[in-house]
């Protein structure tokens, strides 16, 4: 874990601003192109909001851990919680042709990251793995 930068926050929405700040700085350090930094920031924020809403059902005193690493092929982010397990199919997301509130998050995550996967080996809680490849 020694080349990871890790931020751990209570599962209260007021701390999401911290995750966004760290995401932006790490994305900058990773050399991601400027235009994509906002997308990555939004995606990581959406993933953490989902943890609060779904995995922790709105409970604000749990823990969310976000890990960042710059890798040769790009930028990796891991989001861990100890809440309810997400079903891996949710990664599909609903159709965007329907106009209704909600259901956008997964799409915004997949817009920014090339790999979006739950670690199925994790026993308790969730570990969402996000990887963005360096674009040529």
């Amino acid at each position, binding site marked *: 874990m020694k080349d990871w930068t890790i931020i751990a926050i209570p599962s*209260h*929405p*007021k701390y*999401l*601003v911290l995750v*966004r700040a760290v995401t932006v700085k790490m994305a900058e350090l990773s050399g991601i192109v400027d235009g994509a930094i*906002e997308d990555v*920031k*939004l995606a990581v*924020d*959406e993933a953490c*909001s989902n943890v*609060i*809403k779904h995995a922790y059902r709105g409970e604000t005193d749990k823990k969310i851990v976000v890990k960042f690493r710059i890798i040769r092929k790009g930028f990796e982010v891991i989001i861990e919680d100890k809440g309810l397990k997400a079903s891996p199919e949710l990664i599909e997301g609903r159709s*965007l*042709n329907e*106009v*209704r*509130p*909600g259901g*956008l*998050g997964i*799409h*915004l995550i997949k*817009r920014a990251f090339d790999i979006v996967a739950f670690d199925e080996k994790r026993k308790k809680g969730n570990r969402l793995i996000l990887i963005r490849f360096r674009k040529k």
Partner: protein
Amino acid sequence: MEIIIIDIRGIKVLVPSGDIDMYTSPELRKELMSLIHKKVSSLIIDFKEVSYIDSSGIATFVEGLKAMRAYGGRLKFLGISNGIREIFNFSKLDKVFEIFKTIDDAINN
């Protein structure tokens, strides 16, 4: 996020500033819905001071739009930056929301 509400020629303009996220969107929802409950015929949202919006913010506006359409009201957006525009396009909401370039267009249209 902070919200100010101004009145331009009888039309309410809601001006949120800062980040709209899961933390701040409930406050936005409260302000938005309290105007909509009065059945205002037009409501303008000026985004020029919005530095960030996430899906909870977007969901709030979708909800507001649906509530206004139910009584024939119109929700109009102003001051959309390229970054926010991109998120609307991606979400296929650019065709759903009425987006204007100037306050005069928004009022007169």
